[in-house]
């Protein structure tokens, strides 16, 4: 079932000569060829890109597309597989480009160094400055490390002192407790009980003797 739909077209003319549309001054003849050059260069770049796209489409069509009807899930999986392939191709390309740039840069650098007088070149000055800075950095890092080591040692010692004082205090505590226990136990011991009993008997004997002496003294007074 065909549904014919309406279509409208709207257009806009390109900015004359390209970027920004500067007002065309009649006397500025020198501006025109410049704009034409940039326009031509831009068109050249465009045409190149479009040609690349057409070429890649032709290459793509040369590959056989699978004609069999696949299930939906399979199609999804296949699509994701292809998408991953695209991403991999892109990253591989980027990495290769980076490697190529690095090689080009290093050869350019080498050529430049060969050409230029080594002692006075700005590049060498920069590199020397970089080396000096690196040395300074390494030295100060070493100093920081040493200071941190010292700090760590001091902290360790403090910890040890603390632990020693803890032990001493706990020893004192145990000693005190032992003394108290001894004192408590002494009160209940048997030795003390026997001594107490003996003391009591002695006291009784002395009171008896005291009474006896008092009686004899009283009797002697009465006899006079």
């Amino acid at each position: 079932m065909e549904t014919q739909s309406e279509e409208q077209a709207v257009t806009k003319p390109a900015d004359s000569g390209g970027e920004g549309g500067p007002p065309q001054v009649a006397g500025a003849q020198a501006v025109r060829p410049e704009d034409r050059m940039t326009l031509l260069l831009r068109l050249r770049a465009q045409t190149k890109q479009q040609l690349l796209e057409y070429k890649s489409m032709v290459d793509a069509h040369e590959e056989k597309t699978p004609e069999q009807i696949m299930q939906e899930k399979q199609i999804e999986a296949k699509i994701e597989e292809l998408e991953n392939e695209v991403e991999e191709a892109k990253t591989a390309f980027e990495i290769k480009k980076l490697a190529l740039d690095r090689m080009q840069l290093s050869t350019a650098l080498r050529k430049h160094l060969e050409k230029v007088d080594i002692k006075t070149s700005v590049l060498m000055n920069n590199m020397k400055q970089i080396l000096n800075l690196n040395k300074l950095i390494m030295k100060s890092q070493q100093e920081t490390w040493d200071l941190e080591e010292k700090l760590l040692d001091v902290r360790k010692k403090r910890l040890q002192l603390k632990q020693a004082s803890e032990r001493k205090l706990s020893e004192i505590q145990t000693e005190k407790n032992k003394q108290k226990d001894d004192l408590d136990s002494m009160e209940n011991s048997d030795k003390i009980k026997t001594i107490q009993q003996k003391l009591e008997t002695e006291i009784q004997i002395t009171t008896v003797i005291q009474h006896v002496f008092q009686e004899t003294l009283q009797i002697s007074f009465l006899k006079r």
Partner: protein
Amino acid sequence: MSVLRPLDRLPGLNTATILLVGTEDALLQQLADSMLKADCTSELKVHLARSLPLPCSVNRPRIDLIVFVVNLHSKHSLQSVEESLCHLDAAFFLGKVAFLATGAGRDSHCSIHRNTVVKLAHTYRSPLLFCDLEIEDFRAAMAQRLVRLLQICAGHVPGVSALNLLSLLRGSENPSPEDL
């Protein structure tokens, strides 16, 4: 029944053509005007259509980018877009198709859920853009974005192709709409 193919014509010199497909004529017209006002070094041609297939009688240039405008307030626009999608050659979906959902700002009027368009865009592996075309500033910003997209799809930007852009755009999307 004519199927639209992406590369069946030669490109015009310094020309880029975009086709806006959607049922909301006023919005499409406004978007077209904003796009024509935008800064662009190439010549822009904007074609508007309610649905595909396009009438064969018209002599039209090679279409570089197709934007399907779905209004989240009306189910009819989504249906018409889905029907139009059948009339496109598969080669178009390699970066030359984009979906634009409008009307997301007024949530109470939305009859289509956001996830529906997200799934649609995911099925067709095309970028989905959100924009409230009724608001002038957003429309101007979206027009600028579409102009850049169009330039890349037309091959006017050296070093970037439509497929390249597609994989770039895909990277920044939310992962796995299956979680939704």
